[in-house]
């Protein structure tokens, strides 16, 4: 398995596809961070810096969107690009029968490919975050505390798990579909659906299940929102957004949107504007993280089963 892992890793790093992605991500990241940094400096000038100024680098939107939004959006694409031709690429090159006739277990092939992809993602994200940290130190002048570093590390892990889910998904597609183009399209289609359309779908379903006759009827509104939120969590994109926004913003004490809070809750939030300790933030995040991880495991398991059952006849 480690032989395959090493070879796939080398393939990733030398492929032009990866290089293009790297350039794109690095460029966008630098621009966003720089702009966020400048924005932040302006906003924070005069007053004393809040404790989490450093983390704001990742959540403040510059002119376009914040870095965490960018990763939410482009992470799936990264995963899909790295995995969409994992198996059917070998098939179309004619190297799959050769690989399978070597004395290795069949699952070693997908394990090796998956791990290599995860390793690439990990290397990529770690270097990106370090890069931003460096830039942040320069532009904002905020020095991260242990608490913030810990939050960042957890954010990094969650992000890797998030992209790993998409990688696993695209490997499943590469096993199911014989054509490389089809599997790429299927991956992108699912990504677009989960990223953009689950919002519409969840409000549609929520309106059907828990209709709101009167906007002033708080109970109905709350029920409607609850259903909508639960349904939208089907999408890993929303899972990830909820998890990371709580992680990166210590002032967020719940993953619920603020509109849901009653007046008393809102007042108490405003009066006690203290950052949530890391442990408490984690408590909020853990269910999301667990779901994300289990989705990844399910994807990987599906890849495994499909591949083991598949006939390898090339014709």
């Amino acid at each position: 398995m480690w032989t395959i892992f090493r070879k796939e890793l080398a393939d990733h790093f030398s492929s032009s596809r990866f290089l293009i992605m790297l350039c794109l991500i690095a460029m966008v990241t630098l621009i966003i961070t720089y702009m966020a940094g400048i924005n932040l400096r302006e906003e924070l000038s005069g007053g004393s810096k809040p404790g989490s100024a450093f983390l704001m680098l990742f959540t403040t939107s510059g002119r376009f969107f914040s870095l965490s939004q960018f990763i939410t959006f482009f992470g799936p694409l990264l995963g899909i690009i790295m995995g969409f031709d994992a198996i059917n690429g070998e098939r179309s090159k004619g190297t799959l029968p050769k690989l399978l006739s070597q004395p290795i277990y069949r699952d070693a092939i997908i394990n090796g490919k998956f791990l290599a992809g995860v390793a690439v993602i990990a290397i990529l994200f770690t270097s990106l975050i370090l890069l931003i940290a460096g830039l942040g130190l320069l532009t904002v002048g905020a020095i991260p505390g242990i608490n913030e570093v810990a939050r960042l590390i957890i954010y990094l892990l969650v992000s890797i798990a998030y992209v790993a889910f998409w990688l696993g998904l695209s490997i499943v597609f590469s096993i199911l579909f014989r054509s490389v183009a089809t599997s790429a399209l299927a991956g992108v289609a699912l990504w677009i659906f989960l990223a953009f359309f689950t919002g519409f779908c969840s409000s549609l379903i929520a309106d059907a299940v828990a209709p709101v006759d009167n906007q002033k009827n708080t109970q109905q509104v709350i029920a409607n929102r609850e259903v909508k939120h639960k349904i939208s969590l089907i999408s890993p994109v929303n899972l990830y957004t909820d998890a990371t926004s709580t992680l990166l913003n210590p002032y967020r004490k719940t993953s619920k949107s603020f509109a849901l809070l009653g007046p008393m809750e809102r007042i108490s939030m405003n009066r006690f504007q203290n950052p949530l300790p890391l442990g408490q933030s984690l408590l909020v995040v853990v269910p999301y993280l667990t779901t994300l991880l289990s989705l990844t495991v399910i994807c990987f398991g599906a890849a495994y089963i499909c591949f083991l059952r598949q006939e390898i006849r090339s014709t």
Partner: protein
Amino acid sequence: MSAVIHTQGLEKTYAGKKVVLELDLEVRQGEIFGFLGPNGAGKTTTILMLLGLTEPSNGTVRVLDMDPARNPLEVKRQVGYLPENMGFYPDLTARQNLRYVAELNGIYGNEADRRIHDTLNQVGLEDAGDRHVQGFSRGMQQRLGIAELLLKDPGLIILDEPTLGLDPDGIRGMIELIRQLRDERGLSVLLSSHLLHQVQQICDRVGILNEGTMVACGSMNELINQKTAEGARLESLEDIYMHYFHSAPAARRL
């Protein structure tokens, strides 16, 4: 002579259709066995079962005294398989391709270097080792495929259409190479091919497969000069083949 491949009552069913039926196949130590038959006769399916890449629906398989369904890794370690339309990683050099296969077989470092050097020499690609496979001709690719099999120092090699798409010179070279491997390394060879003339030249025994069953099997001497029911003499492998699949024209020509 002991048998390196021995199957008994081998059957394979795909989606309700019997692709291989009651197949008894025996390949002996050190011989070149020609495995013939029209496209879709079940040759590749049989080969996949021999390697444990597909499970037989029925019957027993012994390859080098092992059961490929139960012990696939050991069988794959000792049997070299050249699939039809063998592919390579086009952006790696021949040597890098070979190194990958060597490492998949658990051969590393100097030992791998030595074996790669030897096998490249054996197949006549010693000058092309550092070139990218992208620019290889079909003939060179097939030679590289053979080199890949030899890396693991197999006791038996299974070649599925190794001469497909080669020019006449390439075919002759490939046939020579196969004969050479048998003579020098004592390899047993299962060779599937449509080139009856060449098969007749190098094979010790042949088996002809049609619709999943063996319609004729035996040494060249046994098969040639057989008489058909009509009393016609079958003088070459081509005649025998035509007798089974296209009997009328073969008989007319005689």
